[in-house]
């Protein structure tokens, strides 16, 4: 039985159910790396060039961990585009090449190219090419892929019921659902899934908020039609898939009566976020309290907790005082001085 390693990082959180079913149906054993921990981070930092963003460093740590296992193949997809006329981030497009350049001894890589920006032809060919590594029957490969897509849909519908993708994957794999805690605040939480759902990178942001009696609303809970429709209201279509999702979600959340505040988690040095975060902040700050949390490998947990506590306190006081003013939490005076050029 062949063994394929899948790093528990980056698009693991969006696509793992698909790839797991696909490979399992072809009779392949799947091995994932452990959830991100101190060692993964340290190894990733050692391998990557300094300027790389935190999630990619963590990813390299996961790959290095898998390289120590007995594997026939390592699954490192080249994610160019997962939908028409959109992209992920340039770093995802070079991922297999980065891994080859930075890590000396790797098992053979399955570097399937996912580029749906124009059409699906090349991708379908690549799926068959990958399947051929394990079976000769093209029909079996196609069935496995279709099954994978179904499982992914199932997992996403699980997530839409109020879970993070990470939790949804656990439930999908047979784990138990956790009871919903009592809540008095509704907070929209945005960020790239690979930083938000990785507990090391986000420092448990979602769970911490829940522990503070908040109900967390994630882009996965909002329904993609609503999100896309909101995102289409800006003058130029955002050409990053995740950025557009984030912008649409932010616009939708900012108009909802039941949402108390919005938190945006960004990684230091993230290219798309540096512009999308700015646009979101400009659009949201007049309607809802908003904070942008920037994290990297140097971020301390205490600092994050303090800011989350302060944010929740502020939201509760705002509501309890009955001050229904739409005053931005930035206050007016903070920004007024900038207008005097």
């Amino acid at each position, binding site marked *: 039985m062949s063994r394929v390693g899948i790093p528990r990082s980056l698009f693991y959180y969006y696509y793992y159910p698909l790839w797991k079913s696909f490979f399992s149906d072809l009779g392949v054993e799947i091995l994932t790396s452990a959830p991100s921990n101190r060692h993964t981070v340290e190894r990733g930092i050692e391998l990557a060039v300094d300027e790389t963003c935190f999630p990619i460093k963590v990813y390299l740590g996961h790959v290095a961990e898998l390289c120590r296992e007995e594997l026939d193949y390592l699954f490192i997809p080249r994610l160019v585009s997962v939908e028409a006329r959109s992209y992920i981030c340039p770093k995802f497009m*070079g991922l297999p090449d980065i891994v080859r*350049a930075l890590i000396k001894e790797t098992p053979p890589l399955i570097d399937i190219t996912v580029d749906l920006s124009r059409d699906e032809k090349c991708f379908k060919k690549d799926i068959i090419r990958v399947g051929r590594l394990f079976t000769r029957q093209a029909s079996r490969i196609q069935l496995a892929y279709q099954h994978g897509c179904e499982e992914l849909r199932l997992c996403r519908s699980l997530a839409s019921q109020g879970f993070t993708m990470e939790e949804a994957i656990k439930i999908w794999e047979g784990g138990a659902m956790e009871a919903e805690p009592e809540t008095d605040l509704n907070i929209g939480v945005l960020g790239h899934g690979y930083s938000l759902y990785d507990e090391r990178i986000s420092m448990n942001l979602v769970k911490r908020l829940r522990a503070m009696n908040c109900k967390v609303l994630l882009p996965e809970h909002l329904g993609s039609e609503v999100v896309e429709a909101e995102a289409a209201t800006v003058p130029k279509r955002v050409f990053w898939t995740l950025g557009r999702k984030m912008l649409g979600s932010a616009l939708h959340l900012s108009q909802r009566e039941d949402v108390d505040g919005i938190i945006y988690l960004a990684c230091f*040095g993230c290219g798309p976020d*540096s*512009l999308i975060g700015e646009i979101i902040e400009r659009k949201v700050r007049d309607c809802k309290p908003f904070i942008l949390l920037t994290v990297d490998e140097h971020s301390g947990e205490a600092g994050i907790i303090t800011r989350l506590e302060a944010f929740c306190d502020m939201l509760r006081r705002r509501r309890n005082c009955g001050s229904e003013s739409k005053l931005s939490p930035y206050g007016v005076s903070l920004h007024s001085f900038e207008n005097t*050029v």
Partner: protein
Amino acid sequence: MKVSFPHMGYLYIPLKTLFKGLKLEVIAPPPISQKTMELGVKYSPEFACLPLKINMGNFIEAMEQGADTIVMAGGWGPCRFGYYAQVEREILQELGYDFKMVILEAPDSRISELLLQLKALGEKVSVREAYKAIRFAWKKLIAIEKLEKMLEYCLPRAVDKNHMETIFERALQAVDEAESQQEVEKIAQESLREMEKSPFKSAEVLKIGLVGEIYTILEPASNCHVARCLGRLDAHVSRSIYVSDWVNDHLFGGYLRKSNHKQIMQSSRPYLNYEVGGHGRETVGSTVDFARLDYNGIIQIAPLTCMPEIVAQSILGKVSEELEIPCMTMYFDEHSGAAGVYTRLEAFVDMLQRKKNLPSSPLLLEARA
């Protein structure tokens, strides 16, 4: 309508000519200065890359001088540049400026669409006049690049480096002011001859390839004048990107002249096998090409957090090892200090000179004394 545009190297000269040819009033932003940087940094998103911040400074300064229309390029990702104009417009509007922003969305390989966009800008021009304007601007661009390449060759070899730079600057200004194609050609010929005739040293010089992100390579103000500094340190610098190549490949679909773009892409294999946006793949491909041409070293420059260049940098280590060519990466942002940049350049050049058993450049000896 008073049109302005962002600075990128000497591109302002052909752009001014182009807009004048379209019968528009042009207000070029003042040359990039400390003030430009400060304004740009103050009003831009903190984590945006340096070119956006400099753009913002340019726009604010141009509007202070009376410009009311900004022409800016667009694009469709994955590099951030494609979304620059959108963010810039939002910020400028909030600052209270009254202006129109014309965004030329680069229509890959469709010259007709670009012509239409340009013609829509010029109010009362015929297609013939628009074509003439483009041709004249292109002539100026080519003349400037000839001068630049000559300077890159002559500066490291010249005895009197100040004199060489003076000829270049003077020629640049004359090309800017030239009113006809004949005049441009005459200025270029004379200046090139003058540069060639200046006294040269006989010593061998280093050859360094300059690769990286297009704006940082073309705009000296964004890179602390890396290319000039290297020239003054007796290194012959070849850049991987010239404006005309970009215009030819991306706007004119390789229509104007033979392009070596395909060759560069081919050279990037097997190190980088797919497009990564921006000029990431070109950076790797050019590095391989420079190594094959026996260059002594490579310097990669880019704005801090530039995504495609980080991919390239991750891969350059392996290229450097396998092709045995020293590579150095330098990132620039508003905090880059000239002295720190020069020190690194001096150290790199010094290392290459020792490796090649060349005598140290007098400037280095002076610095060491």
